[in-house]
């Protein structure tokens, strides 16, 4: 098997394992998925991503160009699709295909994502008006992002955040002081976590600066939150 094909097989396996996790598979499944993710790396080349999604690279580039599929700049300067985002896309695609077979399932999946993002209510995202004038845009954005996360927080999102935190700790990409704070915060009941991530005090603001809920909202939803904050600021 060529390394290109191997990557594509691994990505599809990662998506299957992720689907099993979401359906309630035991903890060990996530460990295997993370091992496979390490083998693939944090991003996938656009040509491979296109093949996995069943489209041409030209079609993928069009989606990237209009902001529907995110790419990141790798340390070597290439524009690649983040593995986490690609797996989310595969799962969305699977849902669309299962509900009713269509000729262009990716287009349908992306349209449904856009519609979900547009349904985010600005009233629930923006903090109360006096706060908006008193805080920096970054602080308002962080708070708004976490208000959306809190509104839909479930156990799976907490498990994902804890795993992300563990990975950042392993790779040294989080200050140990904040990693410990987050570990404690994430061990609390859901209602308490919701309060912690949306509280507008000094600790809440500091915690949100290194939040393991990065990626908890999809690409389109995050863009929608940014739009709402920009319009409301």
């Amino acid at each position: 098997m060529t390394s290109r094909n191997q990557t594509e097989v691994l990505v599809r396996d990662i998506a299957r394992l992720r689907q099993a996790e979401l359906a309630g598979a035991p903890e060990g499944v996530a460990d295997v998925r993370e091992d496979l993710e390490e083998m693939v790396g944090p991003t996938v080349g656009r040509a491979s991503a296109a093949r996995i999604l069943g489209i041409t690279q030209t079609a993928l580039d069009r989606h990237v160009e209009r902001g529907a599929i995110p790419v990141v700049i790798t340390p070597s300067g290439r524009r690649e699709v983040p593995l986490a985002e690609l797996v989310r896309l595969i799962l969305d695609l699977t849902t669309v295909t299962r509900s009713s077979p269509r000729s262009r399932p990716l287009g349908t999946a992306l349209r449904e994502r856009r519609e979900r993002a547009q349904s985010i209510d600005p009233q629930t995202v923006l903090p109360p008006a006096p706060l908006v004038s008193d805080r920096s845009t970054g602080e308002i954005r962080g708070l708004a992002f976490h208000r959306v996360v809190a509104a839909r927080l479930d156990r799976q999102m907490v498990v994902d955040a804890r795993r992300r935190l563990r990975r950042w700790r392993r790779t040294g990409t989080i200050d140990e002081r904040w990693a410990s704070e987050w570990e404690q915060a994430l061990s609390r009941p859901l209602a308490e976590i919701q309060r912690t991530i949306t509280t507008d005090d000094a600790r809440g603001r500091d915690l949100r600066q290194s939040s393991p809920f990065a990626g908890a909202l999809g690409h389109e939803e995050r863009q929608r939150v940014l739009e709402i904050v920009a319009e409301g600021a």
Partner: protein
Amino acid sequence: MKRHELEHLIRAAGEIADDDLVVIGSQAILASHPDAPPSLLVSLEADIYPRRDPAVARAVDAAIGDGSSFHETYGLRPTRTAWAPKPRRRRLAGRTG
């Protein structure tokens, strides 16, 4: 943040902002001291702003800021992409490449 991580962040920001990028705050030390003591390198955020065109700061933030795919993927992010006050500009140290 290590020097190569700062370079990665600047490269990513540079893809969006067609401008010189200025790094301020604690991570700026990496430009002249790549092997700075670990205690100075605990932050995974860097204060970066476009030198000539502050209007692109929002685009940089949208693309690689807090909660973005870039942040999720690499754990790195720019924290401030705003225009720096004038007095600071006298103390800029240039780095290219």
